[in-house]
């Protein structure tokens, strides 16, 4: 059985810096990690390998050479191979061009019984690439999967997946090949083992460029992207906030009075002897 897992390298959120001029992420200052939601796709694939030793897992990513970090972590967790689609021609791709490129790579590397991906990436937050890859590959897609079970039916491999949404669960069965996107219901991803880390350290991901994919240049990267970013802006703060300095005892008292006052305005508390009326702190 062959499983392909799509992974993306994203900046670690606590080391993020935003360029105040452009409103974009300053990537050079951020530590790179595997997109946290892709870890659930990896875990789902590795859990299958735990019970089906013959399963081979390939991790695939598109990105700059530095994206090898994410692929190495995937290998450290237990993936067998890693492939990186990289080259200047792929830069500036929107979800459409990214999905088209990844689909071309999957065709080139395949066939795969299962293509796994995370729900979405924590940087772009679109959740589009997985289903678009399925569309380009003309495969069925099951989104928001939690637990999956495999069984060998008369016509081949059948996947039974539990889909999880805000208000309901759904059990779906689908014949392979198919694309699945996973959510946190998969369970906590495994930690890499030392042996895996050592293997990943010595491994260079296989690189694929435009030529190997047989993709025309106008279909990749920014040239192949119908999306145009017109403007990037930080969202305006629509909530009105007020800071209360409670570091000193006086400040704490004033802050408490203000909180009581605000809660009283909303009718959530009834202040005793009008305590909420005094000691107003200016926003």
């Amino acid at each position, binding site marked *: 059985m062959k499983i392909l897992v799509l992974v993306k390298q994203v900046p670690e959120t606590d080391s993020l810096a935003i360029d105040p001029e452009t409103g974009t992420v300053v990537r050079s200052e951020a530590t790179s990690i595997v997109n946290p939601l892709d870890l659930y796709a990896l875990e789902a694939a590795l859990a299958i390998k735990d019970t089906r030793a013959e399963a081979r897992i390939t991790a695939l990513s598109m990105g700059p050479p530095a994206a090898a970090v994410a692929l190495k972590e995937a290998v450290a967790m237990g993936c067998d191979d890693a492939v990186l689609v990289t080259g200047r021609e792929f830069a500036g791709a929107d979800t459409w061009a990214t999905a088209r490129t990844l689909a071309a790579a999957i065709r080139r590397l395949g066939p795969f019984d299962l293509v796994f991906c995370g729900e979405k990436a924590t940087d772009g937050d679109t959740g589009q690439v997985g289903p678009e890859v399925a569309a380009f590959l003309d495969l069925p897609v099951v989104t928001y999967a939690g637990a999956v079970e495999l069984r060998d039916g008369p016509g081949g491999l059948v996947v039974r997946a539990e889909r999880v949404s805000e208000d309901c669960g759904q059990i779906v069965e689908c014949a392979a090949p198919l694309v699945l996107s996973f959510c946190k219901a998969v369970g906590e991803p495994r*930690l890499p083992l030392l042996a895996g*880390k050592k293997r990943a350290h010595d491994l260079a991901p296989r690189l694929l460029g435009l030529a190997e994919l047989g993709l025309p240049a106008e279909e990749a990267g920014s040239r192949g992207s119908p999306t145009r970013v017109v403007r990037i802006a930080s969202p305006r703060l629509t909530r009105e906030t007020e800071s209360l300095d409670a570091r000193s005892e*006086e400040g704490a008292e004033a802050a408490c009075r203000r909180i009581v006052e605000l809660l009283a305005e909303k009718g959530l508390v009834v202040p005793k002897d009008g305590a909420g009326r005094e000691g107003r702190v200016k926003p």
Partner: protein
Amino acid sequence: MDFAPITDRIADELSRIVGPKNLIFRDAERLEPYSHDETAEREYAAMPEAVVKPGSTAEVSRIMALASRERIPVTPRGAGSGLSGGCVPQFGGVVLSLERMNRILELDLDNLVVVAQPGVVTNTINEALKKDGLMFAGYPMSLETCFLGGNVAENAGGGKAVKYGVTSRYVVGLEVVLPSGEVLRLGGKLRKDVTGYDLVRLLVGSEGTLAVVTEVTLTLLPVPKRRAVLLASFPDVPSAIGAVPRIVREARVVPTSVEYMDRASVLASCAYLNERIPYERAGAMLLIEVDGESEEEVFRAYARIGEICEARGADPVYVADNRTTMERIWNVRRNIAEAFKVRSPRQSLEDVVVPIAAIPAFMEGLAAIQAEYGAEIPCYGHAGDGNLHATVVKPAAWGEEEWHGKLAELLGKLYRLTHELGGRISGEHGIGNKRKRYIGIDLDPATLALMRRVKAAFDPAGILNPGKIFPDGA
């Protein structure tokens, strides 16, 4: 002890020094939080008569002068996160809380030092230094709540002492107020200073019994660029413990941390955290952190240490090298005390320290004590520096009285075992009032007599934090 009570007249005088808002007097409800620290056993608690919260060194000085004149005991207090009853007002009197003296006074990057007041929460120092890529390398496990002043008073250690040492390594200057009210400035922004006796070193770890610290100068280090954490699961205690001296001797790298967790600690913490790693079959675990300048350097370090663990039977050995996974592993270690508290609130958290090579012998002795008393004594801690938190948990079958009697006897045995192995009864928590009756196990009469003379030289009237360290409560 011959101390005077705090009268209304004295309370008025205190109020004039710190302002009425910063005095708590005759208000049991507000005094109570100042009667104890984090020591689980409430028998070490004692109520203060008054709490004062000075805002400046001058105010501290006036409080001390007043207390000296009136023979009022004064107990300095930081965040109250201590584990030896060090800030407990044993004889009542005044608790001198340094919570309002909470400013970082100076970040002096040219001299690579920070000057801060004792009420600063330790972690905020590193938050303030983050943008400059610098750190104060002290790392008490309570760093998000404890105060710098408490770290200095107890010479706090923690989880990174293997590589970075304990608080005293970084304290180069102190401003202190003597019990008489005199203000001394000791040391400075200096890496070398042999001008007279090293009083800075004497005061760090003196448990607030010699002087009140009002300002601290700390040296800084660059923050290492890369970190990684190993979690190695061993089949049994001897294989885990035996790996520690081998790591120290053979790995040719100084790990940042080498933390040990026995099976009971691992089970309690992992269950408490709903951790998914296969911990059920672990006999004991080591958590080892390394840091360095490059990914390659850190990889080589953890690969070598991990191989030593594997050679001693560790399987699996997990590796975490990003924030999320490192936090996940450290959480297992950090939540042990909390997990045990949930299971049994009656326990005695110890912090004995032995030479690293004596850890296996200590563990054997500990197992014998457990068997003798039929009490569970889970053990975890900083194996890399021999500092182990053996935690005696009250068996359900023991009544309160039986617990008190047997605990004292058991602790006596535990401490004598420690001493015979070349160790000491406290590595980082301090003696306080909790362990004072056992100090004679470690210190001979001549040493104790000298320490008493030191105490008397600083505090002739015996008003500063009385009832600590010395067995007769002096």
